[in-house]
């Protein structure tokens, strides 16, 4: 098995979950209703837990301890898509990001549950059950708000237009792409993107929102290669603020 290709894939998956989990946790105290503070916190906890499981797989493949990997790297060493590092902004943006991201993520983990790399397949089988609730949450809110007031529809539409190029960046391919496909580790980005587009099209058609023609959009790439927005390094500095006081200490 091509271990480097496998590690590349695991880093992409883990970093996406860690950084979006961190962002989702920032909704504490700020949600439009208390129930959303609570929901975003639950999803954040799940995503943190998912990233931990994936970093644990990486550790088993010889990488450093999960805490070291998560809390001591700098932005250029991260493989997350730029979508997940953007600040939480207003609720419409966070909701749209959550909708677009989790629809891709659930397909990824469904596919990975058949991975030829059995430890990853096992983790994926467990995670996809949790992700089901994340898409369920996103769909409920998108359908409800996306068919309500003009104000809400306009906000969601603007956020959708703004976020889609970043969401397409989730499907950026790396040098590992051919290897993970040929070795049966993962079905590959094209396949996930096609199914994702089908699913979000179906969902959005039940609302007053319009999905722009995705072929006219330029995906925001770079994240998978360590090119990030100005927002990632400050996030990482904050995340590691206490840990770095003494990385060898038990906290």
């Amino acid at each position, binding site marked *: 098995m091509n271990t480097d290709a496998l590690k590349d894939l695991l880093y992409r998956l883990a970093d996406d979950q860690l950084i979006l989990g*961190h962002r989702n*946790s*920032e909704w*504490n*105290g*700020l*949600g*439009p*209703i*208390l*129930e*959303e*503070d*609570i929901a975003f*916190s*639950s999803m*954040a*906890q799940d995503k*943190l*837990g998912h990233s*931990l499981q994936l970093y644990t797989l990486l550790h088993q493949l010889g990488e450093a301890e*999960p*805490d070291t990997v*998560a*809390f001591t790297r700098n932005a250029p060493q991260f493989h997350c898509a730029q979508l997940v590092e953007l600040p939480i902004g*207003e*609720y419409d943006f966070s909701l749209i990001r959550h909708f677009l991201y989790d629809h891709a993520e659930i397909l990824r983990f469904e596919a990975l549950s058949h991975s030829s790399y059995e430890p990853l397949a096992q983790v994926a089988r467990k995670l996809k059950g949790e992700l*089901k*609730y994340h898409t*369920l*949450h996103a*769909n*409920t*809110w998108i*359908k*409800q*708000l996306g*068919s*309500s*007031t003009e*104000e*809400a529809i306009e*906000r969601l539409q603007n956020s959708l237009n703004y976020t889609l190029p970043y969401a397409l960046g989730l499907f950026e391919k790396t040098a590992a792409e051919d290897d993970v496909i040929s070795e049966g580790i993962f079905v590959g980005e094209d396949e996930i993107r096609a199914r994702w587009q089908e699913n979000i099209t179906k969902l959005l058609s039940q609302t007053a929102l319009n999905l722009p023609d995705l072929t006219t959009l330029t995906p925001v790439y770079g994240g998978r290669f360590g090119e990030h927005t100005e927002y990632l390094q400050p*996030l990482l500095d*904050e*995340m590691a*603020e*206490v*840990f770095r*006081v*003494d990385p060898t*200490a*038990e*906290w």
Partner: protein
Amino acid sequence: MYGSASTHDIPASATTGLENEDPILLAEFEARIARGEKIEPRDWMPALYRKQLIRMIEQHAHSEIIGSLPEGTWITRAPGFRRKMAQMAKVQDEVGHAQLLYSAAETLGKTREQMLSDLINGKSKYSNVFNYPAFTWADSNVISWLIDAGAIVNQMANAKGSYGPYCRALERICAEESFHLKYGHDAVVHLATGTPIQRRMIQEALNRWWPPIMTFFGPSDKMSVHTEILMRWKVKMASNDHCRQQFLDMYVPKIWELGLTVPDAKLRKNEDGVWEFTEPDWEDFKRVINGDGPCNAERLAVRRAAEENGAWVRRALLSPKAKYVKPLA
């Protein structure tokens, strides 16, 4: 998390309206409480009982959401996966407590929207302890351990009160708080037995938080107006001093056990089992509770921003055009 530090007792003279209550219903109501029965939302109750309970449960709910802010600051800074996930879950519980408590208060006729609006406008209070900042990770750990410990002392007493929905909410809340206590204690133990930097962090945090902790249960019984009627109606279940003594008895030995110093030279237990301590600065307490504390403005500003930024979502949910979406699993 909650303390009675923000609950000003109604003055002893405030029996306003009681003379207008039906004496037979009132006698029956008091007899039920004396027998240990719970009062339920649809039962008859005096207006004063309703008013006082709304105020108390509402303040408790506000304390939970405002209380989630100082610890919430440390979610994004928690060191390591284990702490990061636990801190998130802990703070999430507090918001969940607010949700439970607003629902309990709503059974008495005041809506959540009205309560939140009164919070933002400064009409209703929350526990004064949250007007102090959590400067470091260690401050957050002290809150998780000792403020939650204080809350448990207070809430265990109130869970034996007379209003059914509030008692049931408190029972569930106490069960969760006891996990917070374990989490907070574990985090404090790690710092207190850790590196010299960690030990210094936790001692400094304890020094900062001790004065607010000592005011957590509210003014001394000598100062607070005795409200016999609230005790008789089982709205107030234990006196401030009683709760404070119980807290000191349970936690000072645990603090000492960790090699930490409590920043009060007078603190000691008498031969008759009563704790002596330096009287907290109640003038300062009043000043902070009336809005002039280190974080009052900031805490309310965060809440106000959340309400304003989220207003469009609530408007959309209430829109007649909105199709109700059932989240089918």
